[in-house]
């Protein structure tokens, strides 16, 4: 077995172990867990959306538990201030009774940050995450602090409670690698959830990977080659969401106000690479791109008023685009 083969095996196994570890606590949601793992191994941030009580926070806590990484949780509320996230400079008295400024790190300085109910904080506070998520740095009082990798923000939000919430601005949304929609569990899964969570001994999770391994896996994923025709397929999918593109499907031209950005295309390709490695392959396939399409694009599509009026969702638009955009040779 060559080193590369071993590397791919290790990657595959670690990803599998991670999913298994999470699945030991979280019942069902296999595809959602897989999507979170893909985003994680691609080095991206994840926005999890679902109604209250579905276990979103539990999922993030479990992921943090499955990784031997520093974890912090920020409960977003309307009175949360940016400094509460990034940290602040405070005056401290030394033993020699000397008063000095010292930077007190906020909860953003962790490997895994749970931004719980992110849409409850004001846009000002939400924006405190922008620099950290995009550049993995925090600038306070003209001093820039680098965040140690791996760094993941996993945010949750509730789509139904609109009162007292502040929808994330597009710039903020675009920084999320994937948006994962969590739905209701099925009856069998619900039964299992009730059995597991209403007893004395709750299942626990053990760490399966540390920061170094995760970093190495992120680097390996970026080394996976992708053929020109597969990249072109990703490009076609991105441009198919642009309403001003004359070749875009009719549904895009009719219902989309703004389509996906190049960052969306990056997410598509990176997720494709991770999925290829998780499948034990050293190249990206059309299927990988297709699998990443909905989670990578559903939050990057801004629909127009007509779509809202007709009850058209981003999901249905993406589904049509995926069907109508044919890859080369297919």
């Amino acid at each position: 077995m060559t080193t590369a083969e071993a590397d791919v095996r290790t990657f595959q196994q670690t990803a599998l172990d991670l999913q298994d570890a999470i699945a030991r606590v979280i019942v069902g949601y296999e595809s959602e867990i897989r999507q979170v793992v893909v985003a994680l191994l691609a080095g991206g941030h994840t926005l999890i959306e679902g109604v209250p009580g579905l276990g979103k926070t539990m999922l993030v806590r479990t992921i943090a538990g499955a990784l031997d990484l520093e974890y912090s949780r920020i409960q977003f509320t309307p009175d949360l201030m940016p400094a509460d996230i990034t940290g602040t400079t405070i005056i401290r008295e030394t033993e020699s009774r000397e008063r000095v400024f010292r930077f007190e790190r906020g909860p953003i300085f962790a490997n895994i940050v749970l931004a719980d109910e992110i849409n409850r904080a004001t846009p000002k506070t939400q924006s405190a995450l922008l620099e950290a998520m995009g550049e993995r740095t925090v600038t306070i009082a003209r001093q820039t602090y680098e965040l140690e990798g791996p760094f993941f923000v996993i945010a949750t939000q509730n789509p139904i409670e609109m009162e007292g919430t502040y929808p994330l601005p597009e710039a903020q949304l675009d920084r999320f690698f994937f948006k994962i929609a969590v739905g209701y569990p099925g009856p069998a899964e619900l039964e299992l959830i009730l059995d597991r969570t209403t007893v004395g001994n709750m299942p626990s999770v053990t760490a399966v990977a540390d920061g170094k391994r995760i970093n190495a896996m992120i680097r390996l994923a970026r080394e996976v080659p992708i053929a020109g025709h597969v990249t072109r397929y990703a490009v076609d999918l991105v441009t198919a969401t642009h309403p001003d593109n004359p070749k875009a499907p009719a549904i895009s031209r009719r219902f989309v106000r703004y389509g996906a950005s190049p960052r969306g295309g990056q997410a598509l390709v990176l997720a494709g690479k991770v999925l290829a490695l998780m499948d034990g392959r050293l190249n990206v396939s059309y299927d990988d791109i297709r699998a990443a399409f909905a989670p990578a694009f559903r939050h990057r599509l801004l629909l127009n008023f007509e779509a809202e009026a007709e009850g058209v969702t981003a999901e249905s638009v993406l589904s049509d685009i995926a069907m109508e955009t044919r890859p080369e040779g297919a």
Partner: protein
Amino acid sequence: MSAQEFAVPIADGLQKAHNDLLGSVTRFQRRIRIVQTTNLLPRAVATALFAALVGQLVGLRLDSTSIGGAIAVLGAFASITLLVWRLLKAPEPRDAALAFDLRVGLKERVSTAMELVDSPHRFELTSHQVTDAAKHASAVRISRAYPFGPSRADLTLAFIVAALLAAWNFLPRDSGIGASITSLFEPPAERLEDDVTRLGESELDVAPRSTARLTDPTTFDRLRGALDQLRRSSNPEADALRELLQQTGESLRQTRPARDVGRRLTGQDYEGAAEALRTLSESLDRLNTSERQELIEGLRDASDITSDDPVFSSQFADAADDLENFRDKGAAENMREIAERIQDAGGLLASEESLQQRIADLERALRQALADGGGPSPSEASPDSGGDTQTSGGDDSDSSDLSGELGLTSSARGSLVDDLEEMGLETRLDAAGNLEIVEIEANEQAPSEDFERPTLQLGRDVDVSLNPLAGKLGTVRSRRDSSNQVPLDVASVVSRYFSPAEGE
């Protein structure tokens, strides 16, 4: 796991993997060609058979086996070309690799590897990816992945076309569906000939002299349709051509060398005239000076006469010029071309004559049928008159037989009269009440006011005065029939053409 753990060395066996990969792709390319060619075979066969069928039908329609054959050969050639092109045209290796991936489900391994090998950029995992792709590609049983299998639709299509072709070739043509299909595709002239032949056998031959009539409306309609087609086929310039040749002949008759040619032309022996002209063209060197001069003048006259036909005229003029300048070879060549044109014109005129004869026969038959009360219902009757032929029902037939078979009610008779008038035909009734169809050609020289309108006389053995304006042929050929009374309900029609007799 450290970062070094993922620092993968480039495999030494990249070249070998690449070669293996190319081998797999080449095998797949070959397989694609063979399978696609085989799968295309039923469609190609169907195309060729269809072309053969179309060729036969078109050949029948145009009365030309050569055109039909050409279409069939063209179809076969196109099919074979398509197959050969398909067999020889190899897809690009990259396209073949992608097709291989998609066909076998290799998740774009092979196409990615092919691209990586050709790319100047090397990823760290390139060699491993190529090796992985080569391994997967070589594990594929290409024959199983890409089996032979023409589509069922193509096979069905080929079978249907083959069955149609077989049916067409083995179906008896003289009856049933075979005859119907044949009649659909036969050229109009042949169809007409068939109609006339069939009718001649069954009805036309006996109709004039017996009581048999064209009682079948379908047959009547077919005859009428045939007549229309014949008229459309008629060449309106035939008379002018005949006149032209006549005048040319008269001109050439004035010359000693071309006298025979001219005589034959005026005698409408175009074949003989052409032959005589060819003979003359071979003996130009034996003409003396005066004969040569006469011939030159004759040809120039002919050129002037035929000035309406620029080609003909220039051929005569060129021949004259060549003769004048002692270019006998050129003159002979021109004369041979003129001979050929005369021969063609002769053929054309013969066809036209035959056509006119058929038109006349048909018109006669239709009028006979109409006069006998047969054919379509009165409102449908529309055998319009043509040519100079003027006939009426009862021509040469026994009037007593016909008089009893008019078979039209009074209102039907009235409608028939109206219809015929609408078509520009004049109608009138003879003393016996037989309907006469007369094409009026006004004789402008005739002092019409000097002629009184004919007097209607009823009773036996009365003379029917005929209108001299009836046409240049003078009379309507009809025989009196005094055995029947004129029905009272045709009085209005009668009054339009006859003045009441004095004292009646």
